[in-house]
Protein backbone atom coordinates (compact mmCIF):
# COMPACT_ATOMS: atom_id res chain seq x y z
CA UNK A 1 0.00 0.00 0.00
CA UNK A 2 0.97 3.59 -0.41
CA UNK A 3 0.79 6.44 2.02
CA UNK A 4 1.41 10.13 1.89
CA UNK A 5 4.50 11.22 3.74
CA UNK A 6 4.30 14.41 5.67
CA UNK A 7 5.60 17.11 3.35
CA UNK A 8 8.64 18.84 4.79
CA UNK A 9 7.24 21.96 6.39
CA UNK A 10 9.37 24.80 7.64
CA UNK A 11 7.57 25.19 10.93
CA UNK A 12 8.12 28.57 12.52
CA UNK A 13 8.99 29.50 16.05
CA UNK A 14 9.97 32.49 18.15
CA UNK A 15 12.29 32.10 21.14
CA UNK A 16 12.69 34.67 23.92
CA UNK A 17 15.84 35.34 25.93
CA UNK A 18 15.76 37.92 28.74
CA UNK A 19 18.85 39.38 30.36
CA UNK A 20 19.33 42.28 32.78
CA UNK A 21 20.48 45.51 31.22
CA UNK A 22 24.22 46.11 31.59
CA UNK A 23 25.34 48.06 34.61
CA UNK A 24 25.02 51.75 34.13
CA UNK A 25 22.07 51.38 31.79
CA UNK A 26 19.49 51.64 34.53
CA UNK A 27 17.15 49.11 36.08
CA UNK A 28 15.66 46.94 33.43
CA UNK A 29 15.79 44.03 31.02
CA UNK A 30 16.80 43.39 27.47
CA UNK A 31 14.55 40.95 25.63
CA UNK A 32 15.76 39.18 22.50
CA UNK A 33 13.25 37.45 20.26
CA UNK A 34 14.83 34.98 17.85
CA UNK A 35 12.61 34.36 14.86
CA UNK A 36 12.99 31.08 12.97
CA UNK A 37 11.18 30.08 9.80
CA UNK A 38 8.81 33.05 9.67
CA UNK A 39 9.64 35.18 6.63
CA UNK A 40 6.57 37.40 6.96
CA UNK A 41 4.56 37.55 10.15
CA UNK A 42 3.71 39.36 13.32
CA UNK A 43 4.52 39.17 17.02
CA UNK A 44 2.58 40.64 19.92
CA UNK A 45 4.42 40.83 23.22
CA UNK A 46 2.75 41.66 26.51
CA UNK A 47 5.02 43.36 29.00
CA UNK A 48 4.24 42.52 32.63
CA UNK A 49 2.76 45.16 34.89
CA UNK A 50 5.49 47.12 36.60
CA UNK A 51 7.60 47.41 33.47
CA UNK A 52 7.70 50.28 31.03
CA UNK A 53 8.78 50.29 27.42
CA UNK A 54 12.15 51.87 26.69
CA UNK A 55 12.90 51.10 23.06
CA UNK A 56 14.06 48.53 20.54
CA UNK A 57 16.38 47.93 17.61
CA UNK A 58 13.49 47.05 15.31
CA UNK A 59 12.59 49.69 12.70
CA UNK A 60 10.08 52.27 13.91
CA UNK A 61 7.70 51.57 11.06
CA UNK A 62 7.57 47.91 12.04
CA UNK A 63 6.90 48.49 15.74
CA UNK A 64 3.79 49.69 17.54
CA UNK A 65 3.41 50.16 21.31
CA UNK A 66 0.09 50.42 23.04
CA UNK A 67 0.01 50.25 26.85
CA UNK A 68 1.64 46.98 27.91
CA UNK A 69 1.39 45.50 24.41
CA UNK A 70 4.00 45.78 21.69
CA UNK A 71 3.43 44.64 18.12
CA UNK A 72 6.25 43.83 15.74
CA UNK A 73 5.87 43.33 12.01
CA UNK A 74 8.35 40.67 10.92
CA UNK A 75 9.64 40.91 7.36
CA UNK A 76 12.69 38.72 6.86
CA UNK A 77 14.12 39.57 10.31
CA UNK A 78 15.74 36.89 12.42
CA UNK A 79 16.07 38.75 15.71
CA UNK A 80 14.34 41.61 17.52
CA UNK A 81 15.77 43.20 20.66
CA UNK A 82 13.80 45.47 22.97
CA UNK A 83 14.40 47.00 26.36
CA UNK A 84 12.07 47.59 29.28
CA UNK A 85 12.55 49.38 32.57
CA UNK A 86 11.62 47.68 35.81
CA UNK A 87 12.75 45.10 38.35
CA UNK A 88 15.26 42.59 36.99
CA UNK A 89 13.68 39.43 38.45
CA UNK A 90 10.26 38.90 36.77
CA UNK A 91 11.42 37.80 33.32
CA UNK A 92 9.15 34.77 33.15
CA UNK A 93 6.06 36.97 33.24
CA UNK A 94 6.58 38.12 29.65
CA UNK A 95 4.13 36.57 27.22
CA UNK A 96 3.66 36.75 23.54
CA UNK A 97 2.21 35.20 20.44
CA UNK A 98 3.42 34.99 16.86
CA UNK A 99 1.85 34.40 13.50
CA UNK A 100 3.30 33.29 10.17
CA UNK A 101 1.31 35.06 7.50
CA UNK A 102 2.41 32.71 4.74
CA UNK A 103 1.47 29.43 6.34
CA UNK A 104 -1.22 30.72 8.68
CA UNK A 105 0.54 29.01 11.56
CA UNK A 106 0.70 30.69 14.93
CA UNK A 107 2.20 29.93 18.29
CA UNK A 108 3.33 31.12 21.67
CA UNK A 109 6.62 32.97 21.97
CA UNK A 110 9.06 30.73 23.80
CA UNK A 111 7.43 27.44 22.85
CA UNK A 112 9.08 24.99 20.46
CA UNK A 113 6.93 25.47 17.38
CA UNK A 114 3.52 26.31 16.02
CA UNK A 115 0.49 25.48 18.10
CA UNK A 116 -1.98 26.05 15.33
CA UNK A 117 -1.45 24.88 11.77
CA UNK A 118 -2.82 27.20 9.16
CA UNK A 119 -2.79 24.62 6.37
CA UNK A 120 -6.51 23.93 6.59
CA UNK A 121 -7.25 27.58 6.09
CA UNK A 122 -5.33 27.83 2.84
CA UNK A 123 -8.17 26.92 0.50
CA UNK A 124 -10.93 28.63 2.39
CA UNK A 125 -11.47 32.12 3.58
CA UNK A 126 -10.79 32.19 7.29
CA UNK A 127 -12.28 34.86 9.47
CA UNK A 128 -9.21 35.35 11.63
CA UNK A 129 -6.47 32.87 10.79
CA UNK A 130 -3.88 31.87 13.25
CA UNK A 131 -3.95 34.03 16.25
CA UNK A 132 -7.12 32.90 18.01
CA UNK A 133 -5.83 29.70 19.52
CA UNK A 134 -2.37 31.08 20.20
CA UNK A 135 -3.85 34.15 21.87
CA UNK A 136 -5.88 31.93 24.20
CA UNK A 137 -2.76 29.95 25.07
CA UNK A 138 -0.83 33.13 25.64
CA UNK A 139 -3.57 34.47 27.91
CA UNK A 140 -3.53 31.24 29.90
CA UNK A 141 0.25 31.40 30.12
CA UNK A 142 0.08 34.99 31.31
CA UNK A 143 -2.48 34.19 33.98
CA UNK A 144 -0.43 31.22 35.12
CA UNK A 145 2.77 33.26 35.18
CA UNK A 146 1.13 35.99 37.20
CA UNK A 147 -0.36 33.54 39.68
CA UNK A 148 2.89 31.68 40.03
CA UNK A 149 4.72 34.94 40.55
CA UNK A 150 2.58 35.86 43.53
Amino acid at each position, binding site marked *: *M*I*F*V*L*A*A*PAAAGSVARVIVPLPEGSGNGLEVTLTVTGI*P*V*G*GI*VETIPDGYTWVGCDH*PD*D*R*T*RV*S*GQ*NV*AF*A*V*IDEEAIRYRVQGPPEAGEAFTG*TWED*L*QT*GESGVVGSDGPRNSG*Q*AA*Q*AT*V*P*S*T*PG*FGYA*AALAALAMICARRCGR
Partner: protein
Amino acid sequence: MTRKLLLLVCCTFLLVGTAAAEAIPCDRDGNGTLTSSELAAAILDSLDARFMGGTVEAPSPVDLRDAAFIYEHWDGRALTITDSSGRATTLTRPLRRIALFNSDTLDMLRSLGLEPDRVVGVSKYVLEDPVFYPEYQGKANLGSIWSPDYEQAASIHPDAVFLYATLSESSCADIEKTLRSIDPGIRFFRFDGYRPATYAEEARTLGLLLGKEEEARRFLSFHRNVTGTVAGVVDAIPAEDRVSVYLESWHDYKSAGKGSGYDEKIELAGGRNIFGENPVEYPVVDPEAVISRNPDVIVKIVGAGELAFGGYGDDDRSSFETVCRTIGNRPVWDRISAVRDGRVHIIHSDVIGGPEYFIGTAYLAKWFYPDLFTDLDPRAVHQQYLEEFQHLDYDLDEHGTFVYPA
Protein backbone atom coordinates in the same frame (compact mmCIF):
# COMPACT_ATOMS: atom_id res chain seq x y z
CA MET B 1 -36.44 53.07 -16.48
CA THR B 2 -36.24 50.89 -13.39
CA ARG B 3 -34.64 48.06 -15.41
CA LYS B 4 -32.07 50.48 -16.87
CA LEU B 5 -31.23 51.71 -13.40
CA LEU B 6 -30.85 48.16 -12.15
CA LEU B 7 -28.57 47.33 -15.08
CA LEU B 8 -26.48 50.43 -14.36
CA VAL B 9 -26.14 49.47 -10.70
CA CYS B 10 -25.14 45.92 -11.64
CA CYS B 11 -22.54 47.19 -14.12
CA THR B 12 -21.16 49.57 -11.52
CA PHE B 13 -20.82 46.76 -9.01
CA LEU B 14 -19.12 44.57 -11.62
CA LEU B 15 -16.67 47.33 -12.51
CA VAL B 16 -15.91 48.06 -8.87
CA GLY B 17 -15.48 44.34 -8.21
CA THR B 18 -13.12 43.95 -11.15
CA ALA B 19 -11.04 46.93 -10.13
CA ALA B 20 -10.83 45.68 -6.57
CA ALA B 21 -9.79 42.22 -7.75
CA GLU B 22 -6.96 43.69 -9.83
CA ALA B 23 -5.44 45.82 -7.07
CA ILE B 24 -2.57 44.45 -5.04
CA PRO B 25 -3.80 43.99 -1.47
CA CYS B 26 -2.39 46.40 1.13
CA ASP B 27 -0.77 48.55 -1.58
CA ARG B 28 -1.95 51.73 0.12
CA ASP B 29 -0.74 54.27 -2.40
CA GLY B 30 -2.07 52.13 -5.25
CA ASN B 31 1.10 52.48 -7.30
CA GLY B 32 1.23 48.77 -8.12
CA THR B 33 4.10 47.95 -5.78
CA LEU B 34 3.66 46.66 -2.26
CA THR B 35 6.60 48.04 -0.30
CA SER B 36 7.95 46.70 2.97
CA SER B 37 6.59 49.80 4.72
CA GLU B 38 3.11 49.21 3.35
CA LEU B 39 3.21 45.56 4.35
CA ALA B 40 4.53 46.39 7.81
CA ALA B 41 1.78 48.98 8.32
CA ALA B 42 -0.84 46.42 7.29
CA ILE B 43 0.57 43.81 9.70
CA LEU B 44 0.68 46.30 12.58
CA ASP B 45 -2.86 47.53 11.88
CA SER B 46 -4.09 43.97 11.92
CA LEU B 47 -2.31 43.13 15.19
CA ASP B 48 -3.41 46.43 16.71
CA ALA B 49 -7.06 45.86 15.85
CA ARG B 50 -7.13 42.27 17.04
CA PHE B 51 -4.94 42.33 20.12
CA MET B 52 -4.29 45.83 21.28
CA GLY B 53 -7.71 47.41 21.22
CA GLY B 54 -6.84 49.64 18.28
CA THR B 55 -9.61 51.21 16.26
CA VAL B 56 -7.65 51.68 13.05
CA GLU B 57 -9.15 50.11 9.93
CA ALA B 58 -7.26 46.85 9.49
CA PRO B 59 -6.88 44.75 6.37
CA SER B 60 -8.89 41.57 6.15
CA PRO B 61 -7.03 38.35 7.04
CA VAL B 62 -7.23 37.27 3.39
CA ASP B 63 -5.77 40.56 2.14
CA LEU B 64 -2.99 40.35 4.69
CA ARG B 65 -2.12 36.76 3.81
CA ASP B 66 -2.15 37.51 0.08
CA ALA B 67 -0.03 40.62 0.61
CA ALA B 68 2.54 38.57 2.52
CA PHE B 69 2.67 36.08 -0.36
CA ILE B 70 3.02 38.77 -3.02
CA TYR B 71 5.76 40.56 -1.11
CA GLU B 72 7.73 37.41 -0.44
CA HIS B 73 7.35 35.63 -3.77
CA TRP B 74 6.60 38.28 -6.38
CA ASP B 75 8.68 41.18 -5.04
CA GLY B 76 5.51 43.05 -4.12
CA ARG B 77 4.31 43.35 -7.69
CA ALA B 78 1.74 41.77 -9.95
CA LEU B 79 3.05 38.64 -11.64
CA THR B 80 2.77 38.14 -15.37
CA ILE B 81 3.49 34.61 -16.46
CA THR B 82 3.40 32.97 -19.86
CA ASP B 83 2.08 29.43 -19.95
CA SER B 84 2.97 26.71 -22.45
CA SER B 85 0.28 27.85 -24.86
CA GLY B 86 2.06 31.22 -25.09
CA ARG B 87 -0.65 33.10 -23.25
CA ALA B 88 0.38 35.75 -20.73
CA THR B 89 -1.68 36.15 -17.56
CA THR B 90 -1.25 38.81 -14.90
CA LEU B 91 -2.06 37.97 -11.31
CA THR B 92 -2.46 40.29 -8.34
CA ARG B 93 -3.42 37.51 -5.94
CA PRO B 94 -1.93 34.08 -5.27
CA LEU B 95 -3.94 31.08 -6.43
CA ARG B 96 -5.81 29.47 -3.54
CA ARG B 97 -8.48 27.36 -5.26
CA ILE B 98 -6.98 25.35 -8.08
CA ALA B 99 -8.87 22.94 -10.33
CA LEU B 100 -6.87 20.59 -12.55
CA PHE B 101 -8.14 18.67 -15.53
CA ASN B 102 -4.51 17.79 -16.19
CA SER B 103 -3.20 15.07 -13.86
CA ASP B 104 0.32 15.38 -15.28
CA THR B 105 0.49 18.95 -14.03
CA LEU B 106 -0.82 17.74 -10.68
CA ASP B 107 2.19 15.40 -10.42
CA MET B 108 4.47 18.32 -11.17
CA LEU B 109 2.76 20.51 -8.58
CA ARG B 110 3.24 17.72 -6.06
CA SER B 111 6.93 17.65 -6.93
CA LEU B 112 6.98 21.37 -6.10
CA GLY B 113 5.39 20.76 -2.71
CA LEU B 114 1.99 22.31 -3.41
CA GLU B 115 -0.27 21.99 -0.40
CA PRO B 116 -3.21 19.68 -1.30
CA ASP B 117 -5.56 22.15 0.40
CA ARG B 118 -4.97 24.56 -2.46
CA VAL B 119 -6.48 22.06 -4.90
CA VAL B 120 -10.30 21.98 -4.97
CA GLY B 121 -10.97 19.79 -8.00
CA VAL B 122 -9.20 17.06 -9.99
CA SER B 123 -9.82 14.89 -13.03
CA LYS B 124 -11.61 11.58 -12.68
CA TYR B 125 -8.34 9.77 -13.41
CA VAL B 126 -6.87 11.10 -10.20
CA LEU B 127 -9.86 9.88 -8.22
CA GLU B 128 -9.63 6.48 -9.90
CA ASP B 129 -6.06 6.09 -8.68
CA PRO B 130 -6.12 6.14 -4.87
CA VAL B 131 -2.78 4.36 -4.69
CA PHE B 132 -0.86 7.18 -6.36
CA TYR B 133 -3.10 10.06 -5.33
CA PRO B 134 -4.26 9.18 -1.81
CA GLU B 135 -4.38 12.77 -0.60
CA TYR B 136 -6.65 13.90 -3.43
CA GLN B 137 -9.40 11.37 -2.84
CA GLY B 138 -12.55 13.26 -1.91
CA LYS B 139 -11.77 16.29 -4.06
CA ALA B 140 -14.43 17.40 -6.53
CA ASN B 141 -14.57 15.21 -9.63
CA LEU B 142 -14.18 17.38 -12.74
CA GLY B 143 -14.57 14.48 -15.16
CA SER B 144 -12.05 14.50 -17.99
CA ILE B 145 -11.05 16.88 -20.74
CA TRP B 146 -13.17 14.79 -23.09
CA SER B 147 -16.16 14.63 -20.78
CA PRO B 148 -15.98 17.53 -18.33
CA ASP B 149 -18.45 18.00 -15.51
CA TYR B 150 -19.15 21.73 -15.86
CA GLU B 151 -21.65 21.83 -13.04
CA GLN B 152 -19.15 20.37 -10.63
CA ALA B 153 -16.33 22.59 -11.91
CA ALA B 154 -18.39 25.74 -11.47
CA SER B 155 -19.73 24.72 -8.07
CA ILE B 156 -16.28 24.60 -6.47
CA HIS B 157 -15.55 28.23 -7.49
CA PRO B 158 -11.97 27.76 -8.64
CA ASP B 159 -9.76 30.81 -9.01
CA ALA B 160 -7.66 28.90 -11.59
CA VAL B 161 -8.25 26.00 -13.94
CA PHE B 162 -5.33 24.04 -15.39
CA LEU B 163 -5.63 22.36 -18.78
CA TYR B 164 -3.26 20.75 -21.26
CA ALA B 165 -1.32 23.00 -23.61
CA THR B 166 -0.91 20.68 -26.57
CA LEU B 167 -3.00 17.59 -25.82
CA SER B 168 -6.59 17.67 -27.11
CA GLU B 169 -6.42 21.38 -27.69
CA SER B 170 -9.98 21.70 -29.00
CA SER B 171 -11.46 19.92 -25.96
CA CYS B 172 -9.45 22.16 -23.64
CA ALA B 173 -10.55 25.23 -25.57
CA ASP B 174 -14.20 24.16 -25.20
CA ILE B 175 -13.78 23.73 -21.44
CA GLU B 176 -12.19 27.13 -21.15
CA LYS B 177 -14.89 28.82 -23.22
CA THR B 178 -17.74 27.23 -21.27
CA LEU B 179 -16.31 27.84 -17.81
CA ARG B 180 -15.38 31.40 -18.71
CA SER B 181 -18.97 32.05 -19.71
CA ILE B 182 -20.10 30.78 -16.30
CA ASP B 183 -17.47 32.64 -14.29
CA PRO B 184 -15.41 35.33 -16.07
CA GLY B 185 -13.15 35.59 -13.02
CA ILE B 186 -11.56 32.16 -13.49
CA ARG B 187 -7.95 32.22 -14.75
CA PHE B 188 -6.92 29.50 -17.17
CA PHE B 189 -3.46 28.04 -17.46
CA ARG B 190 -2.17 25.60 -20.05
CA PHE B 191 0.68 23.28 -19.12
CA ASP B 192 1.51 19.77 -20.33
CA GLY B 193 3.65 18.40 -17.53
CA TYR B 194 5.01 15.50 -19.56
CA ARG B 195 6.92 16.87 -22.58
CA PRO B 196 10.73 16.76 -22.23
CA ALA B 197 11.18 19.91 -24.32
CA THR B 198 9.08 22.09 -22.00
CA TYR B 199 9.27 20.18 -18.73
CA ALA B 200 11.95 22.24 -16.97
CA GLU B 201 10.53 25.59 -18.05
CA GLU B 202 7.06 24.52 -16.91
CA ALA B 203 8.42 23.54 -13.49
CA ARG B 204 10.13 26.92 -13.14
CA THR B 205 7.00 28.82 -14.19
CA LEU B 206 4.75 26.83 -11.89
CA GLY B 207 7.19 27.36 -9.04
CA LEU B 208 6.99 31.12 -9.50
CA LEU B 209 3.24 31.07 -9.95
CA LEU B 210 2.64 29.12 -6.76
CA GLY B 211 5.36 30.58 -4.58
CA LYS B 212 7.43 27.41 -4.76
CA GLU B 213 10.54 28.82 -6.42
CA GLU B 214 13.01 27.11 -4.11
CA GLU B 215 11.17 23.80 -4.38
CA ALA B 216 11.24 24.11 -8.17
CA ARG B 217 14.99 24.71 -8.08
CA ARG B 218 15.49 21.66 -5.90
CA PHE B 219 13.33 19.44 -8.09
CA LEU B 220 14.96 20.65 -11.28
CA SER B 221 18.37 19.98 -9.81
CA PHE B 222 17.30 16.37 -9.25
CA HIS B 223 15.76 16.16 -12.72
CA ARG B 224 18.83 17.71 -14.35
CA ASN B 225 21.11 15.34 -12.48
CA VAL B 226 19.34 12.39 -14.13
CA THR B 227 18.88 13.84 -17.61
CA GLY B 228 22.36 15.36 -17.58
CA THR B 229 23.95 12.05 -16.62
CA VAL B 230 22.29 10.35 -19.57
CA ALA B 231 22.93 13.18 -22.02
CA GLY B 232 26.56 13.49 -20.96
CA VAL B 233 27.21 9.92 -22.11
CA VAL B 234 24.95 9.47 -25.11
CA ASP B 235 25.80 12.82 -26.70
CA ALA B 236 29.30 11.50 -27.30
CA ILE B 237 28.08 8.44 -29.20
CA PRO B 238 28.38 8.93 -32.99
CA ALA B 239 25.12 8.55 -34.92
CA GLU B 240 26.35 5.45 -36.73
CA ASP B 241 27.16 3.72 -33.44
CA ARG B 242 23.79 4.28 -31.83
CA VAL B 243 21.65 1.26 -31.10
CA SER B 244 18.60 0.83 -33.31
CA VAL B 245 15.33 0.62 -31.40
CA TYR B 246 11.86 -0.62 -32.19
CA LEU B 247 9.32 0.83 -29.77
CA GLU B 248 5.83 -0.57 -29.62
CA SER B 249 2.89 0.79 -27.65
CA TRP B 250 0.30 -1.37 -25.88
CA HIS B 251 -1.30 -1.92 -29.29
CA ASP B 252 0.66 -4.53 -31.24
CA TYR B 253 2.71 -3.03 -34.08
CA LYS B 254 1.76 0.54 -33.21
CA SER B 255 5.08 2.34 -33.05
CA ALA B 256 6.35 5.91 -32.73
CA GLY B 257 6.99 8.12 -35.72
CA LYS B 258 8.86 11.32 -36.34
CA GLY B 259 8.37 14.00 -33.70
CA SER B 260 6.28 11.87 -31.36
CA GLY B 261 6.92 11.92 -27.63
CA TYR B 262 8.33 8.39 -27.64
CA ASP B 263 10.59 9.18 -30.60
CA GLU B 264 11.98 12.08 -28.56
CA LYS B 265 12.56 9.84 -25.54
CA ILE B 266 14.38 7.19 -27.60
CA GLU B 267 16.64 9.95 -28.88
CA LEU B 268 17.21 11.37 -25.38
CA ALA B 269 18.34 7.90 -24.29
CA GLY B 270 20.76 7.72 -27.22
CA GLY B 271 18.82 5.30 -29.37
CA ARG B 272 17.93 5.46 -33.06
CA ASN B 273 14.24 4.92 -33.69
CA ILE B 274 13.87 2.54 -36.66
CA PHE B 275 10.64 4.33 -37.60
CA GLY B 276 11.92 7.78 -36.74
CA GLU B 277 11.48 8.94 -40.33
CA ASN B 278 7.84 7.90 -40.50
CA PRO B 279 5.77 11.10 -40.80
CA VAL B 280 2.82 9.55 -38.95
CA GLU B 281 3.12 10.30 -35.23
CA TYR B 282 2.03 6.84 -34.10
CA PRO B 283 2.10 4.57 -37.17
CA VAL B 284 0.89 0.99 -37.29
CA VAL B 285 3.81 -0.82 -38.90
CA ASP B 286 4.19 -4.02 -40.85
CA PRO B 287 5.85 -6.83 -38.83
CA GLU B 288 8.00 -7.53 -41.88
CA ALA B 289 9.30 -3.96 -41.71
CA VAL B 290 10.46 -4.57 -38.16
CA ILE B 291 12.19 -7.78 -39.17
CA SER B 292 13.91 -6.15 -42.13
CA ARG B 293 15.13 -3.23 -40.02
CA ASN B 294 16.47 -5.69 -37.46
CA PRO B 295 16.52 -3.53 -34.31
CA ASP B 296 19.17 -4.03 -31.63
CA VAL B 297 16.61 -3.37 -28.87
CA ILE B 298 12.83 -3.74 -28.63
CA VAL B 299 10.88 -1.71 -26.09
CA LYS B 300 7.23 -2.58 -25.46
CA ILE B 301 5.02 -0.24 -23.46
CA VAL B 302 2.24 -1.60 -21.26
CA GLY B 303 -0.26 0.01 -18.91
CA ALA B 304 -3.21 0.75 -21.19
CA GLY B 305 -5.56 -0.82 -23.72
CA GLU B 306 -5.48 -4.61 -23.63
CA LEU B 307 -2.29 -4.43 -21.60
CA ALA B 308 -3.73 -2.36 -18.76
CA PHE B 309 -1.74 -3.90 -15.95
CA GLY B 310 1.35 -3.06 -13.94
CA GLY B 311 2.15 0.32 -12.48
CA TYR B 312 1.66 1.47 -8.91
CA GLY B 313 -1.44 -0.56 -8.12
CA ASP B 314 -0.20 -3.93 -9.38
CA ASP B 315 2.42 -6.06 -7.64
CA ASP B 316 2.10 -9.04 -10.00
CA ARG B 317 5.10 -9.10 -12.31
CA SER B 318 4.13 -12.24 -14.25
CA SER B 319 2.14 -10.34 -16.90
CA PHE B 320 5.24 -8.43 -17.98
CA GLU B 321 7.11 -11.69 -18.44
CA THR B 322 4.27 -13.06 -20.59
CA VAL B 323 4.31 -9.98 -22.83
CA CYS B 324 8.06 -10.27 -23.27
CA ARG B 325 7.83 -13.96 -24.17
CA THR B 326 4.97 -13.31 -26.61
CA ILE B 327 7.05 -10.83 -28.57
CA GLY B 328 9.88 -13.32 -28.90
CA ASN B 329 7.40 -15.93 -30.15
CA ARG B 330 6.06 -13.82 -33.00
CA PRO B 331 6.57 -15.60 -36.33
CA VAL B 332 10.09 -15.18 -37.66
CA TRP B 333 10.96 -12.59 -35.01
CA ASP B 334 13.63 -14.92 -33.71
CA ARG B 335 15.70 -13.55 -36.59
CA ILE B 336 15.69 -10.09 -35.04
CA SER B 337 18.90 -9.24 -33.17
CA ALA B 338 17.00 -7.85 -30.17
CA VAL B 339 15.11 -11.15 -29.72
CA ARG B 340 18.17 -13.30 -30.35
CA ASP B 341 20.26 -11.29 -27.90
CA GLY B 342 17.61 -11.12 -25.19
CA ARG B 343 17.21 -7.36 -25.52
CA VAL B 344 13.42 -7.14 -25.42
CA HIS B 345 12.29 -4.87 -22.59
CA ILE B 346 8.88 -4.06 -21.16
CA ILE B 347 8.17 -0.70 -19.53
CA HIS B 348 5.03 0.69 -17.94
CA SER B 349 3.59 3.93 -19.33
CA ASP B 350 3.66 5.50 -15.85
CA VAL B 351 7.43 5.90 -16.05
CA ILE B 352 7.80 6.80 -19.71
CA GLY B 353 4.65 8.54 -20.90
CA GLY B 354 4.05 11.21 -18.28
CA PRO B 355 5.85 13.45 -15.80
CA GLU B 356 8.11 10.55 -14.81
CA TYR B 357 9.46 10.29 -18.36
CA PHE B 358 13.01 11.00 -17.17
CA ILE B 359 12.94 7.84 -15.05
CA GLY B 360 11.90 5.84 -18.11
CA THR B 361 14.55 7.54 -20.20
CA ALA B 362 17.15 6.45 -17.66
CA TYR B 363 15.91 2.85 -18.00
CA LEU B 364 16.11 3.10 -21.80
CA ALA B 365 19.65 4.47 -21.68
CA LYS B 366 20.75 1.65 -19.40
CA TRP B 367 19.15 -0.93 -21.70
CA PHE B 368 20.64 0.64 -24.80
CA TYR B 369 24.17 0.98 -23.38
CA PRO B 370 24.57 -1.25 -20.31
CA ASP B 371 28.35 -0.95 -20.39
CA LEU B 372 28.25 2.85 -20.38
CA PHE B 373 25.74 3.16 -17.55
CA THR B 374 26.97 0.70 -14.97
CA ASP B 375 26.59 3.32 -12.23
CA LEU B 376 23.15 4.54 -13.28
CA ASP B 377 20.39 3.10 -11.10
CA PRO B 378 16.98 4.10 -12.54
CA ARG B 379 15.16 2.24 -9.80
CA ALA B 380 16.93 4.34 -7.16
CA VAL B 381 16.03 7.48 -9.13
CA HIS B 382 12.40 6.32 -9.17
CA GLN B 383 12.43 5.63 -5.41
CA GLN B 384 13.92 9.04 -4.67
CA TYR B 385 11.33 10.72 -6.88
CA LEU B 386 8.50 9.01 -5.02
CA GLU B 387 9.80 9.67 -1.53
CA GLU B 388 11.42 13.07 -1.83
CA PHE B 389 9.27 14.77 -4.41
CA GLN B 390 5.94 12.94 -4.54
CA HIS B 391 5.99 12.51 -0.74
CA LEU B 392 4.77 8.93 -1.02
CA ASP B 393 5.73 6.07 1.25
CA TYR B 394 6.04 3.45 -1.45
CA ASP B 395 8.72 0.77 -1.51
CA LEU B 396 9.57 -0.31 -5.05
CA ASP B 397 11.16 -3.47 -3.65
CA GLU B 398 7.78 -4.58 -2.41
CA HIS B 399 5.25 -2.90 -4.66
CA GLY B 400 4.53 -1.97 -8.23
CA THR B 401 5.58 -3.32 -11.60
CA PHE B 402 7.29 -0.98 -13.99
CA VAL B 403 9.93 -2.77 -16.04
CA TYR B 404 10.91 -6.24 -17.22
CA PRO B 405 13.46 -7.64 -16.96
CA ALA B 406 13.87 -5.76 -13.67
